[in-house]
């Protein structure tokens, strides 16, 4: 959405489209405009990214950046609801952009068909207000975390494994992923969704929690998940919350950080340099 449009009133169509938001006193037309002006970067357009992107698009988040270098595979369709059978073989960001545009033409989708690396992460993030972590591997998650800390952007985190999921919000200065898990596990020690399997509906639940937290951050309403780790078990339908805090010894956001630049963890061959 261009800068000049941001100052404009909602169109008649927008008033109708977002009427259920506008009626809510905590949102109103003012809140809807905040959503339309917001710029959110989704890292990953897969299991988590799909429901997050769809609900943020429906809510009218004005700019959605999507980072994913992958193409749609048949095995994705059990859970990656942004993509359809006719998208097999096409870039995920393109497939996603089409789904989103159909849902809501108010949304400007920026396709970043790249792998996020130490070379592009900071530049990518500088264009957005909030980062949503929907990655599917540790290397990228640690990179996204560190880049969010170094560029002082809020990160809306979600992860899944088989039937369980986790979600939280990392606000600048209030802790980060490394406060909980200071360094990644050895490559191959934790199976991927491909190896372990995953309940298709699981990322739907966690992704919508991420979308909810993103909308709350944009609107400045409710109590954020910041400071709490939501732990979800789909089989028992159990939700638990653990306390999270900034760890003063955290290597990237602690009192004496040892990580001051981004690291490209090599997922296949182990850790770089031996320093972490």
């Amino acid at each position, binding site marked *: 959405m261009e800068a000049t449009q941001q100052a404009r009133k909602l169109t008649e169509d927008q008033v109708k489209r977002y009427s259920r938001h506008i009626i809510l006193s905590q949102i109103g037309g003012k809140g809807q405009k905040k959503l339309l002006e917001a710029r959110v970067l989704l890292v990953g357009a*897969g299991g988590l990214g799909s429901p997050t992107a769809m609900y943020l698009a429906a809510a009218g988040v004005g700019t959605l950046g999507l980072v994913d270098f992958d193409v749609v595979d048949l095995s994705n369709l059990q859970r990656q609801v942004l993509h359809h059978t006719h998208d097999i073989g096409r870039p995920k960001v393109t497939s996603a952009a089409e789904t989103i545009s159909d849902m809501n033409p108010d949304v400007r989708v920026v396709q970043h068909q790249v792998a996020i690396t130490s070379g592009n992460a900071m530049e990518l993030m500088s264009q957005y207000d909030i980062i949503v972590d929907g990655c599917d591997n540790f290397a990228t998650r640690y990179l996204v975390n560190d880049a969010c800390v170094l560029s002082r952007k809020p990160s809306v985190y979600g992860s899944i494994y088989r039937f369980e999921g986790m979600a939280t919000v990392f606000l600048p200065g209030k802790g980060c992923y490394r406060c*909980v*898990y200071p360094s*990644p596990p050895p490559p191959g020690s*934790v199976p*991927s969704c491909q190896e*372990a399997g995953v309940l298709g509906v699981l990322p739907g639940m966690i992704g919508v929690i991420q979308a909810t937290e993103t909308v709350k951050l944009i609107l400045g309403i409710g109590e954020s998940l910041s400071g709490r*780790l939501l*732990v979800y078990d789909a089989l028992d339908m159990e939700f*638990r919350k653990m306390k999270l805090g900034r760890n003063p010894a955290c290597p990237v956001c602690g009192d004496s950080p040892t990580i001051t630049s981004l690291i490209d963890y090599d997922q296949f061959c182990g850790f770089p340099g031996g320093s972490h």
Partner: protein
Amino acid sequence: MAVEVKIPSLLRKLVNGAKIVQANGDTVGKVLEDLEKRHPGFKERILNVDGGLNQFVALYVNDEDIRFMKDLNTNVKDGDVISILPAVAGG
């Protein structure tokens, strides 16, 4: 002290598939030793070679991270729930 230990999906094969295991001990460390006696190999997934907490596993007593308390020396009382949360990255 009798506590409940919630076992995450990733580690259930070490405890015959159980989601919750009852265990005894005055501290988190003692509880893990109790589990190890009945399920050899369990401890090495949670602790590193020098006996400290593994960097990719978080342990909570009720809802508090043990690293903000006394680590493995964190006291537990009857009825406490210990949650083991290994890092997972699926998405």
